[in-house]
């Protein structure tokens, strides 16, 4: 079995596992909804600029909460079993892919919730969707990889936040910038540059994860 088919099988396993214990999904869902509601109650009048910033902040924290369990939920022995069964890189890839899908869904959900309570300021749907896709890809790569590091420690959820925020911040700055274009706050033709930048950040993160993971999984 090649890495790709192994990855496919593992992604299916992730989805099935998630579906069996739906309470985790429900927890994230409630987290997003309640955060959006708190924001709405606290801010009342949400300007497009505020909307943009709040959207990415909510998504960032939801993503950290969603991704943190990806390496923690399985015991060390079971993980070792996976690493024997499949190529370790396939294990990492499957988690990244699964988390990417999860974050995309979360992004869509957060968007729907924000639109429901605070209106829809997005003018260029295309570049907003692109920001969402590139953003959830990059976030899932960085968070998955860092969660693999954090899972080795006891206090993994705190550690994940501490370790991942500095690594994510550059990407987040570009994301906020790109979606500011989509919301119509910034004019000009800078959006193309942002997209290229995000693509290259995603690629660097992916390359580093694949290069460094072999040093990480074996205890």
């Amino acid at each position: 079995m090649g890495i790709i088919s192994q990855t496919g099988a593992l992604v299916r396993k992730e989805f099935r596992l998630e579906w069996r214990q739906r309470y985790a999904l429900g927890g994230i869902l409630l987290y997003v909804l309640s955060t959006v509601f708190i924001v709405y109650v606290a801010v009342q009048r949400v300007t497009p600029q505020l909307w943009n910033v709040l959207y990415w902040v909510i998504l960032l924290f939801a993503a950290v909460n969603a991704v943190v369990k990806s390496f923690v939920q399985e015991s060390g022995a079971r993980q070792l079993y996976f690493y024997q069964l499949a190529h370790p890189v396939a294990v990492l890839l499957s988690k990244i892919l699964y988390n990417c899908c999860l974050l995309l869904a979360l992004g869509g959900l957060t968007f729907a919730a924000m639109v429901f309570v605070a209106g829809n300021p997005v003018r260029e749907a295309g570049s907003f969707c692109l920001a969402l896709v590139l953003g959830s890809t990059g976030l899932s790569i960085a968070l998955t990889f860092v969660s693999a590091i954090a899972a080795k420690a006891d206090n993994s959820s705190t550690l994940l936040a501490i370790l991942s925020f500095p690594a994510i911040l550059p990407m987040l700055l570009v994301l906020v910038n790109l979606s500011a274009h989509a919301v119509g706050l910034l004019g000009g033709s800078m959006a193309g540059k942002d997209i290229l930048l995000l693509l290259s950040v995603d690629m660097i993160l992916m390359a580093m994860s694949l290069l460094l993971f072999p040093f990480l999984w074996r205890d």
Partner: protein
Amino acid sequence: MRQQGWKILGVLIVCYTFVAGLLIPLKPGVFRLEPSVVQAGDTVDLQLEGYNTHFLSEGLSAWLVRRDGRLLEPLRMSAEREDLLRLRFRVPPAEAGAPVLDTLQLVLDNPVDGHFQTVLFLRQGDAMSGGAAGPGWLDRSVELHTAAGRSFPFLNTVYESIRNLYFHVPMWFAMFLLAIVAAVRSVQYLNSRDIRRDQHAQSLAGIVMLFGGMGLVTGAIWARNTWGDYWSNDPKQVYTAVGLLIYGAYFVLRGSFEDPEKRARLAAVYNVFAFSTLVPLLYILPKLSADSNHPGTGSNIAFGSQDLDNSMRMVFYPAILGWTLIGLWMAQLLYRFQVIRHRLAAPPMPR
């Protein structure tokens, strides 16, 4: 002795930075000029406060110079102190078709200070034509003096704090160079599993944090005096803060593991990963810096072109090298300290 050469070099260079950077005087310049707008056709009295100037010395001359190079001599000139000068000009009436508002250079020249200038505005819009008749704009060239000796540029609002360039900016350079070395050490650890490489990386990361903190503090003090606030959310401040966060997280990560091998491995992996995310920030930085207060971005004057003149380069470039060498030395000392502490903490070998 041969192996200590780079430390001696570092100390010498840093000493040179301190001596040259703090002792070389600033070029003379105009600190304040009142009024800053003159009306065409009027007789105006200008009061000028200089900095590092010698108005009382022999051979002082002053001209108002138009954009086309024509100039005007003062009616009267009296220096009250070395740094206080009063000038009276009779500005000729506006010519037909002249712009409403124009800029003039007030050029001052004497043998001690050389020549220096400041800008003022000439309003010629609602001029009453046919004012007092007097000498018009002269079309001739004048000989200017050049000051002897080295001096640093005189910049408005920056003034003497320009010397901070030799301490604030090299901190940032040294921080980044040391961060590169730390990342290389981490890669070497992952390849060789030699625990000393990881200890090198750890000591270097400590010094990176120290230099980053020093850079932030010196920058904040400088920003308070020139921009008005300690923290103005400048992209370069954000960048340094992110760098500090990364290394802070690195030390938190180290603290979470007991097993030395596991700690070294995970810390090395994180160091390389986080450093590689820091590099894109270098490309994001120029994009964001349209609203940076730092020199060389947007409409701000660049230290690279006109302000970083040769006398500053002579101190600035060695300063980067000197502080980097000092940083490497500090990291080496920290490494040795940790090795010794490690040995003392370890239980004695059974005989």
